[in-house]
């Protein structure tokens, strides 16, 4: 079937299998491999992207369901000149990543969370990341990064 999806501001139309998941569409059809697949049960959040600005798990959505919608992936976060998004920069400043595999999903989940909770407590950040698993960092520095972005109030939506 034909789907037309705007990804990181670029609209494309492609013929895809009806069973193609959004994450496979992004990775295989659009060539955006920053979005990772870490599980098969909607548990780990590695595949998190923004659908019309809200975090969703792209492994639990058909490409067909994204037809006509706007998707933002990790590749769409930095400025065109390569300047990292404030969340990305905070992850670096606070050593919020190690192997980096969960990181794109974490960054996207935090982008959505901070839009809904611009001034969160630490507990709210932790609850807000309940759907994203990381095996390297113990979450401490990820939480610090999210809080730092909120404190700085520099989130661009």
């Amino acid at each position, binding site marked *: 079937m034909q789907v037309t999806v705007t990804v990181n501001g670029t609209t494309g139309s492609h013929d895809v299998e009806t069973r193609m998941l959004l994450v496979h569409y992004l990775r295989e059809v659009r060539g955006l491999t920053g979005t*990772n697949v870490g599980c098969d049960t909607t548990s780990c959040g590695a595949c998190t992207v923004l659908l019309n600005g809200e975090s969703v798990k792209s492994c639990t959505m058909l490409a067909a369901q994204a037809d006509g919608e706007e998707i933002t992936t990790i590749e769409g976060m930095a400025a065109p000149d390569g300047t990292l998004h404030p969340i990305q920069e905070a*992850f670096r400043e606070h050593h919020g990543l190690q*192997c980096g595999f969960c990181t794109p999903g974490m960054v996207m989940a935090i982008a959505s969370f901070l839009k809904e909770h611009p001034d969160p407590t630490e507990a709210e950040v932790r609850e807000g990341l309940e759907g994203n698993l990381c095996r*390297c960092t113990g979450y401490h520095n990820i939480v610090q990064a999210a809080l730092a972005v909120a404190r700085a109030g520099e989130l661009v939506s």
Partner: protein
Amino acid sequence: MSATMTEDTPAKGVVGTRMLRREDPALLSGEARYVHDLVVPGALHMAVVRSPYAHARVTSVDVSGALGMPGVAAAFSGADLAGEWGSAMPCAWPVTADMQSPPHFPVALNEACYVGDAVAVVLAGSQAEAQDAAGAVAVVYEELPAAVDLEDAASDRVLAHSDLSSNRAYTWELTPDADAVTRAFDAAAVTVKERYVQQRLIPAAMEPRGVCVVPQPFGGEYLVYSATQIPHILRTMLGITAGVPEERIRVVAPSVGGGFGSKLDVYAEELLCLVLSRRLRKPVRWSEERSEAAQATIHGRGQVQEIELAADTDGRVQAVRVRLLADMGAYMQLVTPGVPLLGAFLYHGVYDVAAYSFTCTGVFTNKTPTDAYRGAGRPEATYAIERAMDALARKVGTDPAEVRRRNFIGADKFPYASAAGLLFDSGNYEGALDAALELVDYEGLREEQARRRGQGASKLLGVGLSSYVEMCGLAPSRVLASLNYVAGGWEAATVRMLPTGKVQVVTGATPHGQGHVTSWSMIIADKLGVSPEDVEVLHSDTAVSPLGLDTYGSRSLAVGGTAIALAADRLIDKARLLAAHRLEVAPEDLELSSGQFSVRGSPSSAMALGALAFEAFTAHDLPQGMEPNLEASATYDPTNFTFPFGTHVAVVEVDAETGKVDLVRYSAVDDCGNQINPLIVDGQVHGGIVQGVAQALFEEAVYDDDGNLLTTTFTDYLVPAASEVPSFSLGRTVTPSPSNPLGVKGIGEAGTIASTPAVVNAVVDALSHLGVVDIAMPVTPERVWRSIGAAAPGTGGGR
């Protein structure tokens, strides 16, 4: 702090600063490429058909149904591939001369020995087509009885392999002085005897495994991409096992999404992609899925431990005696049998114990093979001794901190020759304990605990200690030889200065999240007086870094980092000769500071290393006999392990009604010797703590009586999220290791080694007034509730 440290810091140095990681921009932007991200035109996707039975005879495999499916290129049974193998899959650690190791082939021939054992493979144009067709392979099984429970398997009631005479693979013993142990127990005023179960764990690196082999059919060479911690070891083992000359194989580990030991192995799928690419003359790739990973990637832990302490009435420990059963799973993977040995020397922990005895029997079961998982042997040892020390404290009526204090190896006793036969390099165990108790306000917590108990509060407070030492920096090759390990423990490095003064470092270490690029460039920046940004670190590709023994066992800095420092020193030695030649002074009259050689007493007469690199490159005017270019290599074989240590304190609240445990605070004081980058050390500690907490409270690979794994997804296998753990307060003491010139130890596994017993001790402590002395891991709410009921009938808990 500056993100790039571009100011002229080398004078005081970048080593020891919290420099931000150079790896991060690529990982943060989505630019980094993991195996699954690689685009390889024409690749066939492999799907593996796996046994649904823990133990079964494979009567027939009919792939014809799959061959007719859309997009399918080929399908093979084990018998179809039998001629492809040069040998069975490798085990590099036959711990005893008479160890049993049933031959293990990538696709089972006649007998499947665990749920997940491969019985056929299908290759198709897409992963979806391969998965569709895998379901059309018809396999006839004759189910056989399965050896599932470890202790039952040890009884040989049911054999895990029909051609084994016993499930007992080996028994390995370390008893330097049996009489001393016997005497100590005979004379002991107090003894403690505890039994603990180390449940099986699923490593669950966030990136599942993946392999892609690109053959060059006419050149006869193979480019193997694998999500592996060990490209160098893998190359050799692939060569032997697949019968491909080693020099025809190039292994590349691209970005690797965590390992924790689970990618320290030689796997069936790596071998299959290689031989199928040879057979079909096409690229073959495989991407593991999470529920597949639960069965096809090694598990960790899996032990039944019995530990005994002999002590005097003050709780001073005289002897430690340990007996283990260790679950090998169905086959010996790369280092399966050796994992318990990595803990075998450490069951006396940080305590000065005169007599020591350890015995371990490795047992086959019809379950996924076990192998090294973060800490490998040492978390198990630390858990046993630290739980037992709390039991001893209860028995002699002493505070857990005090009983530890009475038994520590004194700071004045290093280097310390242990009864188990190790030489502990350096330590100050009491210093770390004191720092940790202060950090967490131990006295205040004890007061709060008493207050809550007095009020009959439903949220009980518990405080748990874990003082640990571990042996890492694997490993001195001679020691490995004495343990029957078939390889060495050295690491190789090359440092070269390019004509423009930039630096290339080639390392045999294989980072997969540890930040080696950052740390190695910091070491080199200080050595050569360059900016870390000017250092390129080449790794994880056997064509670029041909020599190496890779990353595991907290070895990369202590062994690989030392190799880099030694290579840099050699480069400097050569540069010094060149500088002396050009400045017309004796080499010993030159001093090196901030990358510049200057003549002692005449500082205006100087040459920078960068300029010397250019001179060495042009080779227009070199001393007689000097070869062009500034390049040096070093291979470092450590003289000893390193011995990081510390004390962790966990604080829990237990809901006495539901049994739910909340980890509310956690403080850790670790000592890993000198730190290259404390930011990275912090991160390793944080992550390590949560992995240990996960064993204490959340995770277990659960099998049913028939050998079916019940926890194949992240909905059943409970990897904790941010919502389940607190932030951590960290402290550090610094006791350099005398064993290597950097004075470093290791920190990759320490958090995991320390945290599990701290958390369980805390839960038991919370309930100790009710009479609870032990709760099995993972400490689930139901288990807590049942413990309360069993210890204190009538308090509302279950029975």
